[in-house]
């Protein structure tokens, strides 16, 4: 077992564990912070798979902005009576479905991709990704700008619409 694999396994354990904690923690802010850990670990995984550019984007967009947004949202919507349980009565079904999904997907992966190896070729430099983005994938990229704009406008107009104007 190579070092990469070992690190990967550690990161995987960290990611999965913190994800689990994030989804079960009773404290809302803890949840968000555990999620940061998960996302960071996943970014680490990306690096291990030599997709550095993606990893940086992950850290920037997720850890840097999304989680901050979330934390703001959590604080803005803090309820006066935070005593209610943070998980619903639905949780056993949810847990069952989660386990089924994980095991099912895992089984699929095992069935489909057992014994394959990732060779350590560098795949994810910023240059090559940029090249690909602006040549082959320019159409979806441009559409994406539309998506972001629409989402932005939508978010603005929606956050306005809750008010009793």
């Amino acid at each position: 077992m190579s070092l990469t694999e070992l690190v990967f396994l550690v990161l995987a354990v960290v990611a999965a564990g913190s994800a689990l904690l994030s989804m079960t923690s009773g404290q809302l802010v803890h949840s968000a912070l555990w999620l940061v850990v998960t996302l960071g670990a996943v970014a680490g995984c990306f690096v291990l798979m030599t997709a550095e550019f993606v990893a940086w984007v992950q850290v920037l967009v997720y850890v840097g902005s999304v989680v901050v947004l979330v934390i703001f949202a959590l604080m803005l919507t803090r309820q006066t009576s935070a005593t209610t349980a943070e998980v619903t009565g639905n949780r056993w079904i949810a847990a069952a479905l989660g386990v089924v999904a994980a095991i099912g997907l895992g089984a699929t992966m095992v069935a489909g991709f057992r014994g394959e190896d990732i060779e350590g070729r560098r795949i994810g430099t910023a240059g090559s990704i940029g090249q690909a983005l602006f040549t082959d994938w320019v159409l979806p990229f441009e559409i994406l700008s539309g998506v972001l704009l629409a989402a932005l406008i939508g978010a603005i107009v929606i956050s306005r619409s809750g008010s009793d104007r």
Partner: protein
Amino acid sequence: MRSVLRSHWLYVALTAVLALVAAIWAVPHLSEPGWFAYAPDPTGFTPPLPTLSPDLFLFPASAQIVLLAVGVGLLVQIYSTAYLGHHQRYRSYAMVIVLFLVAMIAVVGTTNLWVLLVGWEVMGLCSYLLIGHEWETGEARAGAAKAFLVTRIADLGLVLAILVIGETYGTYDLLGAQPLDGEAKNATAIGLLVLVAVVGKSAQFPLHSWLPDAMPGPTPITALIHAATMVAAGVYLAARMLPFYADSTVALTAMAVIAGITMLMGALFALVQTDLKRALAWSTVSQLALMFAAVAASDPEAGLDHLVAHGVFKALLFLGCGCLMHAVGTSALSAMGGMRRPMPVTFWTMTIGFAALAGIVPTAGFFTKDSVLHALESATEGDGALAGGTAWALFVVALITSLVTAAYATRLWLKTLLGPAPGGLDAHEAPLAMTGPLVVLAVATFAVSIGQPFHHGIGVVSTVIAAAGIGLVLLMWRRGSSLDWAPAPLAAELGLDRPFSRWVPRLTGDVASAVVDLDRDAVDVYPRGGAAAAALGTRGLALVQSRNVQRYATVLAAGVVVLVVVGVVVS
């Protein structure tokens, strides 16, 4: 116009015209030689679709029956002007009689089996309507319904018989369908089916009980339909169809057995009746059986001769009965007696009628019964389709029946006409319109015997038997017997009516109720179940529609899992 329509004589005239036309048509055929005109010419073996072209055709025997029908019909129509003329529904009554006569002529005078069938059924309908003429009374309603049901159900036999004939011979024309030299095909089937039809129409065992129950009908109608013509049409049909099943031992034996049972049974029942009309009805049943016996013995001519003679004297008896009822207001034997003085015409004509019934020389009844007995005797030789043993048994039964017939005829004669008059009876002779037909019929009772064959041996035997029967009753009468015998089983008519009066209606009613219940509760389950399931589904879906996003997501995820499983399993 209105007064003309109300006038009774309009209908008599109508009937008379009909009778005249029929007579002009029929009389020349009387003297034609032969009995059936054979003209075998099968047109192929796929019968055509039915039509109702009249295809009129008469042979001597049918000409006689046409004459009998229109003659009795005319007399009855005249008789009715007095008997029922006051009735508010006289018009419909008279019209139905005319319709009936037309139907009867159709039955007898056509070679088209469909026309025959139509006439046959229309006769049944007329019978139904006329029995139910007094529809206010429960008896009449019940009697009419029973008569119609029994005869119509039996008529299905005729329908099937016609179908079989059509399929067998490729035509529905009686002449076209005549079998070539003894090559009758499907003989047994046709024979048995015809038998079913005629047993119903002629009130033979086991479908006999409707005829006595039909007696609530107006008496003239009883004379016309339920004695002289319609019930006799069964015999006519059996005789007419005989060539189709003459080879079939099964059919003929069945007919013989039925005839044997019926003639004795009818005679015995007639012996114990306390009601004149009902007694005459049983007598009719018995006499019809005698005719069937002749047909079964392969001598339809004798049967038809007796048919005509019986038609005349039984019409006479019924019309006389009507006069008596006119006088005393009821048909119960207990209310009658001592009629010779107040009602001489009725007395003498009825006496002639009873004599003919008992079979006394020289009435027509004697000669034609003689012919029948002769036919039975000749059948005992066993060279016909009927086995010798069967024929013997039938012959013996017929002789016994003769004895009983003579006995009950005498009894009825004594009890109704002679006997002591019941107290307070103010009987008087009926009007001329009623007595006139009696006289005509009485004359006819003798007239019909002209030209009838006479068989020495049998003639003597039957005379002896008749005399024995008459003598026996007279002896008992002299001894002071009231002649009111009523052995319980016979009085109850052996309970033979029970299936028809109780079991079948009750069973049908029960099954029908069950069917209605099933229709509602069982058959209707699937639409109602479907509707209920849909309603349940709607409610269930409303439950899913909880507005709780998380549950939606759960449904969604679970759905995906299911779909993935489906996809994996089937691929």
